[in-house]
């Protein structure tokens, strides 16, 4: 009956004061659950410590492993903690439930773009986590004074931040798509859990991907997860040529466009069968 569905509603931008208020509300909400947030950060610190000491032990009487010097590897491992906060911090995990329980209706009856709402909510969440992440890693470095490789080139450092930013956008759309499963199924947790496990592995959250056997590394290269953690850190470490960086940025932007289009398509399909349940 209605062939033309306006995708822009639910997808387009709005006034800046709105996003400021979303920031404010998100932070106040996190602060209501201070202990939750604190424990989450402790979990992240523990994860950092485990991976750090594990790798530190591997280098006990070696100077290089898998083509990584001790400094490079420890820098990679500590940077995971920082890049994680930028890329993998998200508030979108509850979207599947929101759809299932009909809470999505609250957004649909208002002149607000649902995706933008969650994007700015994520930004608030990421910023808070980033501040904590930098603080934690900073303390860690001050106490243990580990051998690290700092990137002296400002241009490379900025490219690293751009790559991490693209990774954040990529993960955002990826997480949205997983949430949109809620339009079709009530079992939203299992697919999210499984995809998270696969994603964490292929994103390089435990080790740099190029230490994997060639076949697995090739698989990782064709997945978007490659650009979540591994690629930005490789840029920072200065281990990629300019051509490789350019190619990586191009492919990751390509992924963004692809996931963006897919998200819009799935969203409009989902809304047509959305039942606004919850009674």
């Amino acid at each position, binding site marked *: *009956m209605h062939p033309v569905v306006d995708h822009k509603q639910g997808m387009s931008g709005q006034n800046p004061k*709105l996003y400021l208020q979303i920031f404010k509300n998100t932070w*106040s909400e996190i602060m*209501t659950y201070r202990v939750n947030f604190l424990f989450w950060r402790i979990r992240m610190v523990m994860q950092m410590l485990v991976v750090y000491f594990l790798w530190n032990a591997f280098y006990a009487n070696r100077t290089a492993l898998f083509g990584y010097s001790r400094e490079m590897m420890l820098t990679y491992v500590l940077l995971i903690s920082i890049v994680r906060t930028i890329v993998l911090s998200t508030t979108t995990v509850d979207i599947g439930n929101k759809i299932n329980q009909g809470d999505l209706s*609250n957004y649909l009856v208002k*002149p*607000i773009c649902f995706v933008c709402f969650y994007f700015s909510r994520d930004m608030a969440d990421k910023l808070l986590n980033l501040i904590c992440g930098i603080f934690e890693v900073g303390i860690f470095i001050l106490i243990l004074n580990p051998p690290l490789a700092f990137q002296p080139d400002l241009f490379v450092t900025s490219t690293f931040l751009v790559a991490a930013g693209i990774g954040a956008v990529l993960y955002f759309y990826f997480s949205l798509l997983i949430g949109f499963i809620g339009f079709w199924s009530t079992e939203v947790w299992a697919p999210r859990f499984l995809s998270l496990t696969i994603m964490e592995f292929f994103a390089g959250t435990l080790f740099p991907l190029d230490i994997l056997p060639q076949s697995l590394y090739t698989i990782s290269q064709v997945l978007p997860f490659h650009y979540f953690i591994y690629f930005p850190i490789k840029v920072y470490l200065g281990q990629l040529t300019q051509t490789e960086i350019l190619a990586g940025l191009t492919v990751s932007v390509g992924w963004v466009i692809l996931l963006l289009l897919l998200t819009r398509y799935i969203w409009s399909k989902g809304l*047509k069968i959305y039942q606004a349940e919850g009674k």
Partner: protein
Amino acid sequence: MSISVAHLSKIYRIHKKAPGLLNSISSLFLRQYESIPAVKDISFTVQSGELIGFIGPNGAGKTTTLKCLSGLLYPTHGDIKVLGFNPFDRNKKFLQQIALVMGQKNQLWWDLPPMETFLLNKEIYEIDDLQFKKTLAQLTDLLDVSKLLSIQVRKLSLGERMKMELIAALIHSPKVLFLDEPTIGLDVVMQKKVRDFIGDYNKLHQSTILLTSHYMEDVRQLAQRVLVIDRGQILYDGTLTNLVNKYAKYKTISIVLDEHVDVQLFRQYGQIDSIDYPKVTIKVARGQTKATASALLQSLPINDLNIEEPDIEDIIRDVFSSSQQKPSRG
């Protein structure tokens, strides 16, 4: 005209799953769907400023209709125009002028004071500071909740929360308001307050209001016009008075006797409804109430006599049960 609905149908496609683990596993591979028609070919129009009540049992299609009108559901068939817009397009100008309140759903941020939700809505609807202050003062005043604005939503009582939900929904002064069970779960005092507020709001702002409620009192007090809906079809569309005239075939005559009489005597006047000496009530066909009353007064020792309309609930129950006798289940 504010709303027009033409031949609206909504068929839900439900994934059927038999209980049990084995069936759950087999349904992973072979999905069976069932089509459930929630609304079947309904049409009606609403003038701007009207307050309309939807009456119907659970699952009649009231909520589905409201959800189609507010753009949440994609209609299977039919055309809807609200303020000139097709709701499902979710045009920004359309969304800025409507609001939906669901008694069992909340839009308030659970962990924050209601004021934070209002401020967020202020930005969503792009309301300027002055207008926002004015509207908020007016609404909090009407609902008597100005002292509760900075208390965490989770700490408010159900009634207080419902009032806050209403404020959150009305802060942008919508032209069209959809209220789905706004008084559900509230005690009688709070129910009356919310009901009075809705009535006052409608008069004050000339906004179009569509209301569903299980409480007949809400509809009786508020709605100038009712839509009786059952099994996805409209059974009646008009004023409550006309509904009574059309469907109530009887009036009730209640009598208080002066002295004991053989109750069998009443049988010739009408159907005996209840006997609780000295009180007797009988049902009499509508056209004959006056004649019957005077005949009773002349022939029996009567202290007091009253002619009463039957309960609106009873009439509506009659309407539903007569519709259920039709083999129309599709």
